[in-house]
């Protein structure tokens, strides 16, 4: 009888241990991005897309390896690099091996440095940095490291493709460049000046300025300067509330030309721009959704809309991150050894459901992919943003943009 009790206790205990083991088997991805403050909407929408992509592409299909699920663990960094480093430490302490971040290159610069140091000092708990949206070129050039992978095209690649489209318009004579005052805004401005002066030396750059990020209440004074400069095109890298504020303000205050930009869609922005910005805003991005590329993508988008009726897939590369990570983990046969996973990611060719191929360039860990220039409109839109009837329609595509672009990265491998 005594033995029976012991046996029962042991088996109960082993069940508990087994249960915790199964629970711990989830492959956790820390999502470190702003979930409060002025950029909360951008961060939260990104989180929803991550969670949906993990469920839809991995968990509902039986997981990776022997049934391990992806779990997205959100951390709010309030868009502050300092806060991000604290959250990174918390994530590492929780045993998380994959860090996803995208909003603000300032944060990404801090994270990539901290991760490189951490991995050097703690070979037992190394982590990978999945950068899905921070596009400062330095991250895959001077500041590159083995642990950082960028799934979005960097600011130079985007500007190269965007200025190709701009250069084709002969009526454009004066361009105004405006952006947020931090590494990304400066990178956009530098790339715009370099590209325009080589592709269209006749075009005059009538303004090139930076404004504080997330702090401008009213863009009217900037809009006045733009109108007064006589510009017939604007280039900006603004995102979040800064993009909407600038865009609305220039249109209201008498600017007539187009706005060439990176992130002027989704998160309520498309609805807020509405009719006023029709055919005025042109965006460069990867993965266009109008027209949709594949039936798989259509089904995915429909499922997403069923789950988040208010949401948009405005960062389709998040699905590529999840897809490529799953493929790399399968290829490596383990999720714990991040060096093996990183080696799988390096040089990976991946067929995206949003169309085209994605090639993770081994020399700098920059994803090379098709770039699309789309226009804000309500015509021919299958999938609108913000349920507004308006969306982004792809006008032109550059396949495998900047495939052979140079990099200054000297990758040190472990």
């Amino acid at each position, binding site marked *: 009888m005594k033995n029976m009790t012991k046996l029962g206790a042991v088996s109960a205990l082993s069940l508990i241990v087994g249960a915790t083991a199964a629970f711990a088997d989830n492959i956790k991805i820390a999502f470190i991005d702003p979930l409060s403050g002025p*950029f909360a909407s951008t961060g939260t929408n990104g989180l929803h897309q991550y969670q949906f992509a993990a469920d839809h592409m991995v968990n509902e299909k039986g997981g990776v390896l022997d049934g391990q699920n992806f779990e997205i663990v959100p951390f709010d960094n309030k868009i502050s690099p300092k806060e991000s480093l604290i959250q990174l430490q918390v994530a590492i302490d929780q045993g998380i091996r994959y860090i996803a971040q995208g909003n603000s290159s300032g944060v990404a610069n801090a994270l990539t440095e901290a991760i490189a140091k951490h991995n050097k000092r703690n070979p037992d708990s190394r982590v990978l940095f999945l950068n899905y949206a921070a596009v400062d070129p330095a991250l895959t050039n001077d500041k590159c490291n083995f642990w950082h992978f960028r799934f979005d095209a960097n600011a130079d690649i985007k500007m190269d493709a965007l200025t190709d489209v701009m250069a084709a318009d002969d009526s454009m004579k004066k361009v105004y460049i405006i952006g947020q005052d931090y590494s990304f805004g400066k990178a956009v401005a530098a790339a715009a000046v370099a590209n325009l002066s080589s592709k269209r030396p006749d075009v005059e750059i009538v303004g090139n300025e930076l404004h*504080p990020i997330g702090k401008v209440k009213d863009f009217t*004074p900037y809009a006045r300067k733009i109108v007064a400069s006589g510009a017939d095109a604007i280039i900006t890298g603004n995102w979040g509330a800064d993009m909407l504020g600038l865009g609305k303000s220039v249109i209201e205050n*008498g600017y007539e030309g187009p706005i060439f930009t990176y992130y002027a869609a989704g998160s309520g922005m498309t609805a807020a721009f509405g009719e006023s910005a029709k055919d005025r805003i042109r965006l460069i991005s990867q993965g266009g959704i109008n027209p949709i590329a594949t039936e798989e993508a259509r089904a995915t988008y429909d499922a997403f809309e069923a789950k988040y009726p208010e949401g948009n897939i405005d960062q389709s590369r998040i699905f590529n991150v999840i897809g490529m990570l799953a493929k790399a983990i399968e290829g490596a046969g383990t999720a714990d050894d991040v060096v093996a996973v990183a080696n799988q990611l390096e040089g990976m060719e991946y067929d995206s459901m949003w169309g085209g191929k994605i090639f993770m360039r081994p020399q700098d860990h920059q994803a090379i992919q098709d770039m699309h220039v789309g226009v804000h409109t309500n015509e021919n839109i299958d999938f609108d943003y913000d349920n507004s009837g308006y969306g982004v329609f792809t006008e032109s595509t550059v396949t495998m943009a900047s495939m052979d672009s140079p990099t200054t990265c000297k990758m040190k491998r472990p």
Partner: protein
Amino acid sequence: MELILVNVIDGLVTGLLLFMLSAGLTLIFSMMGVLNFAHASFYMLGAYFAYQISLALGFWVGLLIAPLIVGVMGAGVERYGLRRVHQYGHVPELIFTFGLALLIEELVQFVWGKNQMAYDIPDILNFTAFSIAGNSIPAYKIFMIFISVGIFMGLLYVLTKTRVGMIIQAALSYPRTVEALGHNVPLIFMGVFGVGTALAGVAGVIAGPVLGTFPGMAFVLGSIVFVTIVIGGLGSLWGALVASLLIGWITTFAKSYNIAMSDILNGIGIATPENLSDNMFRDLWTVTSPQIADILPYILMVLILIFRPAGLFGKRES
């Protein structure tokens, strides 16, 4: 020259908007001695309520009803929150309003989400009133000017010419005497708090369509409102007006003209150092006025506190 006129109008709009926020705050402060940290949150609530109402009943109904709701909420906060905390002193009151600000932001995110709301200018005002050298002045801005000037006139009239205003002013300085004369001072406090928050609500209703309606809108405007009332003098309506306009014009002009620090320094006879990239004052030399436009009001506040601690129109000594 034309651009100066345009900037004067733009600065006026910014300043008057700021005035509607700071007028309520400064009245509440002078009456109760409480800095209401949640003031900008009532501004945000005004915008969100007006957006929700405008979906069903149109912009104009929103303009009428949303400030009323915000005012009633404000009065409720005073009656059932602040009044109870009041007996424990000023620090608990400050903490209470601070907590309320956080609570309102979370509540707004909970109900409306974190996205930008598509709260738009009504069609009837969505046209260009006139243009100055290619710079169009939207009719909505003219409308904003009229609304805020109207509110200022109304407030000034009520406070200085009516019986209610006199009782309020008396209650400001000698609350116990006024109470002894048979007036219900707590009711006056509640009324002032309600009107103050309703003013913030009006500001939210008319600013929402131009400055964007999103959960960060209170945060973006919060600190500048305090700067305004400190510069103007705590408790002074005229001070709030002058300080708001001053801040509106300073920031607008600083952003509109690229005045470089190196030009100013050269102008007063200091030559640009040759090796600028190695110079320890490099950041100072390369700064331009649009970059520092948003901190100019804070610099002004520090100067005012040093040279005129009571503020431009303040009467208080301490």
